[in-house]
């Protein structure tokens, strides 16, 4: 990769050599902060050119206002078959014509159709109805931690099992299979996936979901995969499309929330006054705001949301030409000091925390956001209530961060109490 990059750089005009490479590294000493180079770029301009793995130079949006505007602009497409689309990696480019269209890669009416097929289990009221079940799973996991030897790993004992059990139940995926799908989801989420590795992960899960959809077409029950199977039976979508949508829900439904729990607990342990405020909070509104601020502060989706302009767009003094790639990076936007003064401060009572872009914005904003909110509110609050003496069991510098994953977080978090 580096070799190819320098080849490309030397063959381009000298002015292009100044275009920084994306993605950028975080500072190992400030692992919660977005990459410092991105923050610096955002101080100068809310959008600028970057160079990505294939040598192309899409726009990187770092500013809050511009990100929000472009997320909601219908001239900005998520269709990754379009010329100029800035793919994540070689795997995504290599499979672009093999993957069925899904909620992630379709625009306008096609997108709305897919999205509405997925939305039923995630409405605000349905999720409210799940709170007692989420609370119970959370309490069981914490019982298990308290009964185990010290140190205990928050990631494997709490962060992963809570969202995985909840989404398995909602989708009708047997929880016994969690090791299989967690493993395959992991391969699929490698940030710099080669075509071969990515293919392995994607194929394993696609086959699993295809079999499940077929089984539910014969024997439906009350769950989201059965809903998709019903649509296949009705001729609305193909088995392949149903499996693709189910895979998306399964991966997004456990991996993202799990990462947010792991790194969120660490951020709270590093800010004990904030952890204490959350622990002592009784008003659900305060607990909710705390979770919004953690989402703003940590923006775990790294690698940028990828888009391509389908018409010329004038924005913030620049012109994005039709056919040019756009990368919207959530982390620098959520640390934009024009929107959030002292962005490096975790302030759980920040009054505009709820306007963060951690779930994205626009019509592709996270389908499962209300579920994620409920899970995070319950898990953080319950954990610090039940184990008020919780502390890190290793030096902070030894915590392993997921610099190489599409979703940022920690690989493990050993704690004691």
């Amino acid at each position: 990769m580096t070799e190819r990059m320098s080849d490309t750089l030397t063959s381009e005009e000298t002015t292009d050599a100044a275009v920084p490479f994306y993605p950028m590294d975080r500072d190992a000493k400030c692992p919660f902060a977005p990459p410092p180079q991105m923050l610096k770029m955002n101080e100068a301009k809310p959008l600028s050119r970057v160079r990505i793995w294939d040598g192309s130079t899409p726009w990187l949006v770092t500013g809050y206002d511009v990100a929000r505007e472009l997320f909601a602009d219908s001239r900005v497409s998520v269709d990754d078959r379009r010329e100029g689309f800035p793919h994540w990696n070689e795997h995504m480019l290599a499979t672009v014509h093999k993957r069925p269209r899904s909620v992630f890669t379709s625009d306008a009416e096609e997108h709305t159709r897919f999205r509405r097929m997925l939305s039923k289990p995630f409405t605000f009221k349905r999720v409210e109805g799940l709170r007692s079940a989420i609370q119970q799973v959370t309490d069981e996991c914490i019982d298990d931690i308290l009964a185990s030897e010290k140190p205990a790993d928050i990631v494997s004992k709490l962060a992963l099992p809570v969202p995985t059990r909840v989404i398995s139940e909602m989708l009708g995926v047997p929880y016994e299979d969690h090791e299989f799908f967690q493993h395959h989801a992991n391969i699929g989420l490698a940030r710099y996936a080669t075509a071969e590795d990515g293919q392995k992960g994607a194929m394993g899960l696609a086959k699993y979901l295809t079999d499940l959809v077929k089984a539910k077409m014969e024997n439906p029950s009350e769950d989201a995969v059965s809903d998709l199977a019903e649509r296949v039976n009705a001729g609305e979508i193909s088995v392949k499309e149903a499996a693709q949508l189910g895979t998306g829900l399964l991966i997004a439904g456990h991996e993202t929330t799990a990462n947010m729990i792991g790194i969120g607990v660490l951020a709270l342990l590093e800010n004990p006054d904030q952890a204490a405020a959350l622990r002592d909070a009784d008003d659900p509104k305060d607990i909710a705001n705390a979770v919004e601020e953690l989402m703003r502060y940590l923006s775990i989706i790294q690698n940028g949301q990828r888009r391509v302009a389908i018409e010329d767009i004038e924005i913030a003094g620049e012109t994005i030409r039709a056919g040019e790639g756009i990368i919207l990076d959530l982390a620098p936007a959520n640390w934009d000091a024009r929107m959030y003064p002292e962005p490096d401060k975790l302030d759980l009572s920040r009054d505009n925390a709820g306007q963060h872009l951690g779930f994205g914005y626009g019509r592709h904003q996270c389908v499962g956001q209300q579920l994620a909110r409920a899970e995070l509110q319950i898990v953080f609050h319950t954990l610090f209530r039940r184990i008020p003496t919780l502390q890190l069991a290793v030096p902070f510098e030894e915590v392993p961060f997921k610099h190489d994953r599409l979703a940022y977080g920690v690989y493990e978090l050993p704690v004691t109490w």
Partner: protein
Amino acid sequence: MKVRVDQDKCVSSGQCVLNASDVFDQRDEDGVVVLLNENPPPDQSDNVRKAVAACPALAIEIEE
């Protein structure tokens, strides 16, 4: 305050119900917005403005 919603634009995010559950609801089958009260009382105005700002699909319009 007068409120209008565009169900064709709606992407079922639930942000309106999160911010103003007395004024908005979601259809059970697909989460699409349902307007419960197109003339909400003044004590709901702030919540409705928050819902407008939070709606990712720009599907809510208000006349003050």
